[in-house]
């Protein structure tokens, strides 16, 4: 069954020249085999413990949705609190979180789909503290999809012809089936994914309601996966509606109970955003004053819930919940 000498070949017509996270499907498999818990062992822990154990300096980090919409904001705050460094960020469909992580000194590389270009980011670029590599939102989620499939790359019908292509890890090849040019993009298997779900059990079986960006892809593609959830539910509830499970437990390393964990953003169906604080972070970023935001909202508190109790308060949280009136479909 030794392969005979090549009878034919696939021309590579054009290649991007940028760095990209090493593609290593077999290495990922070996990591899964050696590190993932495939039995039903509880993995519930605090945000602090989860970030201490599963986020390391230099990791490639992907977070789902963004700071304004079902973001894993308790985990993002904890990463800033623990002063993680040199993170490489999957900057897809994101506005303020990239500026927050760059401004707080946690991130030094961004794969760009879309992020709010703002003074903290521009200054870091100017000072050489930040590198950006060019993709698009869908190309980033396509790379995560390839990572979640355990394959080294995926063909895609977009991205070709752009200058982003030239500053990426994409390649243009001749499709061996049609003979036409087709773009392929490298699989992305982040070191760590942080995802905020509506519900999860203590093993990591998680439910996300509403639309999303790439929750399943990030969960399956990432070596380490932290799921924070508004509600921790019993596994019997999961079993009663298996069609509502978004992420299976064996992909998940840590579960964090995180009520209002997307504050000041919205967790659709559960609570709306806190517009004043959303404007506050935009202002902090536009004025290149991330520190003041972090010094007010993150650093003074041992935990996210301390912050919610001391700076936000139950009345405000209650108002955010009651304002969220479009609830159809946000349940199992």
């Amino acid at each position, binding site marked *: 069954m030794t392969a005979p000498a090549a009878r034919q070949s696939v021309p590579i017509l054009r290649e991007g020249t940028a760095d990209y996270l090493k593609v290593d499907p077999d290495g990922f498999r070996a990591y899964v085999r050696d590190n993932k818990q495939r039995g039903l062992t509880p993995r519930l822990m605090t945000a602090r413990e989860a970030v201490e154990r599963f986020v390391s300096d230099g990791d490639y980090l992907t977070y789902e949705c963004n700071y304004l*919409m*079902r973001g894993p904001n308790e985990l993002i705050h904890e990463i800033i609190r623990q002063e993680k460094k040199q993170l490489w960020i999957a900057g*897809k*469909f994101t*506005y303020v979180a990239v500026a927050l992580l760059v401004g707080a000194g946690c991130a030094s590389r961004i794969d*760009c*789909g*879309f*992020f*709010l*270009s703002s003074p903290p*980011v*521009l200054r870091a*670029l100017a000072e050489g503290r930040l590198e*950006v590599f*060019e*993709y*698009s*939102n*869908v*190309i980033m*989620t*396509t790379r995560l*999809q390839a990572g979640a499939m355990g394959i080294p790359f995926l063909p*895609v*019908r*977009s*991205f*070709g*012809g*752009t*200058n*982003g292509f030239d*500053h990426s890890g994409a390649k*243009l090849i001749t499709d061996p089936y049609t003979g*036409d*040019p087709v*773009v392929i993009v490298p699989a992305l298997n982040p070191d760590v994914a942080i995802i905020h779900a509506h519900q999860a059990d203590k093993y990591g079986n998680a439910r996300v309601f*509403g*639309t*999303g*960006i*790439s*929750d*399943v*892809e990030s969960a399956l593609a990432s070596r380490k996966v932290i799921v924070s959830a508004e509600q921790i539910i019993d596994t019997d509830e999961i079993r009663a509606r298996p069609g509502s499970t978004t992420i299976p437990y064996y992909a998940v390393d840590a579960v964090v109970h995180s009520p209002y964990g997307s504050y000041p953003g*919205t967790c*659709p*169906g559960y609570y*709306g*955003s806190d*517009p004043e604080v*959303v*404007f506050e972070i935009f202002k902090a970023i536009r004025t290149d004053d991330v520190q003041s935001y972090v010094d007010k909202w993150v650093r003074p508190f041992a935990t996210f819930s301390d912050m919610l109790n001391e700076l936000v308060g139950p009345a405000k949280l209650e108002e955010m919940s009651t304002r*969220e009136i*479009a*609830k*159809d*479909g*946000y349940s199992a």
Partner: protein
Amino acid sequence: MTRAEAFSEREVAMCTVARLVENGRTYWAAGGGTPLYSVLLGQKLYAPDAQYVTEDGVVAPEPMLPFEPMMTMVASRAVHHALLWGTMNSAGLHAQLGHMDYGVLNTLQVDQHGNINSTFLGEYGGSGRRFGGPGGADTIAACCWRTILITDQERRKFVKAVDFISSPGFLDGTPGARERAGLPRDTGPWRVVTPWAMYDYEDRRLRLMARVPWVTVDEILAECEWKPLIAPEVQVLEPPTEEELHLLRTELDVRGQTTDAAGSWITWDGEKYVRA
């Protein structure tokens, strides 16, 4: 329809795009703001069976209007009563399969071949200014059958060649350039709409096809660093109607964030429209 008395330039552009919206067609509206408001305006006033998707994979929602600030995707009011809740990849794949007729997007900079720059002004990596990147626009411009681009009528926005192709137009403008780059056959730019004008393409080159009553072709050309082709007959666009503006101001852009963001105002002086 009642001809309106006063409106902003951005409102003009959105009303112009709204009138392009057709029944039985699918629209992928980029991000929130102008593209989404334009499609919703067209759907509600002219084409109730026009259907739209957004980047988060929502299919044909019945949004609870108005949106909360910056909450035009994922948020519950935005995705309310959709036919399907998907993901970014489902949106991308449905477009990749050919299910999306029109993509609607806006940009910083467009060139003679409809290429779009939302990444970098100036020489990439050099002293220029960094912007946010293509977001969903690259996929929209690559995979929807036709692309409608919304931008302001400013010299610096209409150039010979964009500094950085974030999302593909006709690339170098040669026949088959998109296909040679791996993009789907028979797709590409279709219209560019500004507060002053509408453009189409002739042999993959931008062409001025229509203007608003209160600006001349010369005024438009003066606001193009690179001069587009000009149609043999440049049509005159209808101004916004009160019905359009009412819907826009009461249900869509209620805070005026989008419409007031740029451009001057136009008023009816009893005989003609004049720029304030």
